[in-house]
């Protein structure tokens, strides 16, 4: 029977059916549900790793031992895992090894719009790109076959629209794939220079063999227009294929590429000569287009289509000079609705205090990035995971001001790549103040466990990293914990630690208010007679508070009674009911 499945769930299904034994991942939109869905199959060992490099290296270990293994991450995660990837290309695999990576054209939930195909090209690793959920399952299974046939890790490239779209999938049974024998093989697995120099030619030969394979592999296919018109030929892959079919239906000449690295040569040339005009339609960078040009083909592509943002059927229609459907819009200005910190979010009290103290905040990535939004406006920089802790050290090494600057980082992000930055602060002594926002969960990506939460991916009890002990062990003497719902305590902690003449860590600790285990309180109310309309409570940017007729009003459906606004009100107008 066919089932409606997310692309990510279909990848997990593919892992299961391919006999994969181990899946290690680090959450990141839009890739997260692959690992979450994989964890529902008891036949596979699944885990959240502290970061993507660890996830890939863990999968490498399982592959070395002879098992089929996979790891998952978002596009920027592949940067973190790039180090093992590039050399895994040299060692090759024992059991099949698949690296699932999800791009985010349009940056729905990302800090950049990088195109992971460049990593495939640079690391000389084959990459598959499915165009719907059914293909997500099939290509995952094909990736294992390729991995073992060509002795290479294989990248599976997902993107937001494939990962987060449900479409119909015909599922099968799990294959019984025996463990391969582990045989010690230093020439293949010890990548010291003398061995690696002999492995490099193997990589080059493998790319040639893969290019050969690309010419007539079932992952790439040509569809000719049913009406016989050979004017326009389109080369595309992934979501763009769906947009093209949406526009032309069966009346399109399409070369659909499923193996996006390496790209075929003859297949493309033959296709190009079978039509009058070739247009390459690809989101992000002109990878296929540049390949065509390098073969001397005169194709159209980024001269017409944008490099920035995601495509849609109308965007393609417009570029190709076709009509787009009529549409109306409102005459009124429609206010934007940006994401906000939830009512009762423990991050809010801390950011309010930072803003009040006019502190420079070297930020990081997580729900707390929202501390940068109006009205708190409390963050100065956000670069990549871990860059807050590492960055403040450099910031503070230059000139004055270390008593006016803090780094903020979430618990998951600290485990991911903040720890090493803190070691640097301690070792190279910058007297920096680091605030770990410990909300006991990986919030931004939708509540995944991490090493600080005390639970594993299944929600079973696990070893919990003791953040205080960790910080002390690496040489930070000043470590203190505050409750971010307590504004006075936050204020005191921040002032004292900034004034201290040594490095310090403040752990701002309170679980995410959306966690099921958190008991919220009754909503607060405003005594309209006592309220003077000073709008001090409005400085919190709490979605549960707004002004009506000059007085503050609390929305009882949103308020969870955290009491932070109550502490701010000088007139005692905000109270428990």
């Amino acid at each position: 029977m066919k089932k409606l499945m997310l692309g990510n769930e279909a990848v997990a299904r593919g892992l299961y059916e391919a006999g994969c034994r181990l899946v290690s991942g680090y959450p990141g939109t839009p890739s997260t549900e692959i690992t979450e869905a994989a964890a529902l199959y008891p036949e596979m060992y699944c885990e959240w790793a502290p970061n993507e490099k660890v996830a890939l290296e863990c999968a490498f270990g399982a592959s070395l031992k002879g098992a089929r293994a996979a790891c998952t991450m978002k596009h920027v995660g592949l940067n973190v895992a790039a180090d093992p990837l590039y050399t895994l290309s040299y060692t090759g695999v024992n059991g099949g090894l698949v690296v699932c990576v999800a791009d985010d054209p349009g940056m729905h939930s990302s800090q950049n719009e990088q195109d992971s195909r460049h990593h495939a090209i640079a690391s000389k690793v084959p990459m598959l790109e499915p165009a719907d959920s059914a293909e997500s399952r099939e290509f995952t299974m094909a990736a294992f076959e390729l991995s073992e046939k060509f002795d290479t890790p294989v990248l599976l490239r997902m993107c937001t629209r494939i990962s987060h779209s449900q479409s119909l999938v015909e599922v099968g049974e799990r294959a019984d794939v025996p463990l391969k024998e582990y045989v010690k093989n230093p020439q293949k697995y010890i990548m010291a220079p003398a061995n690696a120099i002999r492995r490099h030619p193997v990589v080059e030969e493998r790319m040639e063999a893969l290019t050969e394979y690309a010419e007539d592999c079932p992952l790439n296919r040509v569809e000719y227009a049913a009406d016989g018109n050979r004017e326009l030929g389109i080369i595309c892959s992934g979501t763009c294929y769906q947009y093209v079919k949406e526009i032309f239906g069966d009346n399109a000449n399409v070369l659909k590429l499923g193996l996006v690295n390496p790209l075929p040569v003859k297949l493309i040339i033959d296709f190009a000569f079978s039509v009058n005009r070739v247009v390459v339609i690809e989101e992000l960078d002109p990878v296929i287009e540049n390949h065509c040009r390098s073969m001397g083909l005169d194709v159209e592509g980024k001269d017409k289509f944008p490099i920035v943002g995601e495509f849609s059927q109308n965007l393609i229609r417009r570029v190709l000079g076709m009509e787009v459907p009529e549409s109306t819009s409102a005459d009124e200005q429609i206010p934007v609705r940006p994401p906000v910190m939830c009512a009762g979010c423990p991050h809010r009290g801390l950011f309010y205090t930072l803003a009040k103290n006019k502190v420079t905040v070297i930020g990081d990535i997580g729900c707390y990035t929202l501390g940068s939004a109006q009205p708190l406006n409390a963050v100065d920089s956000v670069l990549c995971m871990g860059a807050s802790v590492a960055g403040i050290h450099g910031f503070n090494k230059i000139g004055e001001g270390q008593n006016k600057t803090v780094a903020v980082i979430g618990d998951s992000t600290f485990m991911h790549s903040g720890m090493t930055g803190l070691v640097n602060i301690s070792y190279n002594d910058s007297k920096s103040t680091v605030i770990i926002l410990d909300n006991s969960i990986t919030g931004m990506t939708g509540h995944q466990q991490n090493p600080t939460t005390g639970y594993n991916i299944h929600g079973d009890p696990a070893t919990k990293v003791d953040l205080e002990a960790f910080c002390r062990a690496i040489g930070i003497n000043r470590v203190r914990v505050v409750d971010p719902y307590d504004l006075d305590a936050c204020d005191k902690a921040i002032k004292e630690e900034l004034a201290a003449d040594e490095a310090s860590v403040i752990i701002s600790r309170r679980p995410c208010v959306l966690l099921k285990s958190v008991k919220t309180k009754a909503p607060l109310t405003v005594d309209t007679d006592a309220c003077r309309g000073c709008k001090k409570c409005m400085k919190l940017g709490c979605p549960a508070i707004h002004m009506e007729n000059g007085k503050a009003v609390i929305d009882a459906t949103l308020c969870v009674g955290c009491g932070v606004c109550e502490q701010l009100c000088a007139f005692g107008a905000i109270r428990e009911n």
Partner: protein
Amino acid sequence: METKNIMIVGVGGQGSLLASKLLGHLLCQEGYDVKVSEVHGMSQRGGSVVTYVRYGDKVYSPIIDKGEADYIISFEKLEAARWVSCLREGGRIITNIRETDPMPVITGATEYPHEVLNSLEGKGVSIDQLDALALAEEAGSQKAVNIVLMGRLSKYFDIPTEKWTAAIEECVKPKFVELNKKAFELGRNSK
């Protein structure tokens, strides 16, 4: 059959995922090819969220573009107006009339356009406006707004009520089935 397009729009956290699950399930049962697309992640935190449901003989694109939606189901007034450009000529908006202020309105940077639906109607847009929150409360939970709206949508479909209720039974936890069936009825029978 040509592909039909339904959009579900609202504010992150309002429960659009259950509505799209229900529709996806129902339309699969009816034998259609179906695609349901949603964006997870950042936008869940009180931001504007959109889900696309498409069905027909063969569905290609996962998204619904400007001028293509047959129905826009909205959990909130402003969101209905935000996405109206996706409505095709002759399409219909089904919206809850309740207002949820976005942050720029809360901070006073801009105002909420309270009359926006009326002016859209003035431009000839078909809009079903209902107080879905009140109906959900009547059914027993504010959270049932999604199913109230599904009830209203069902009026425009040739699919018998039993099939909708069967889909509800499939998609919600047993202890909430009765509540949601009631919410569905209230939505379906609303004026």
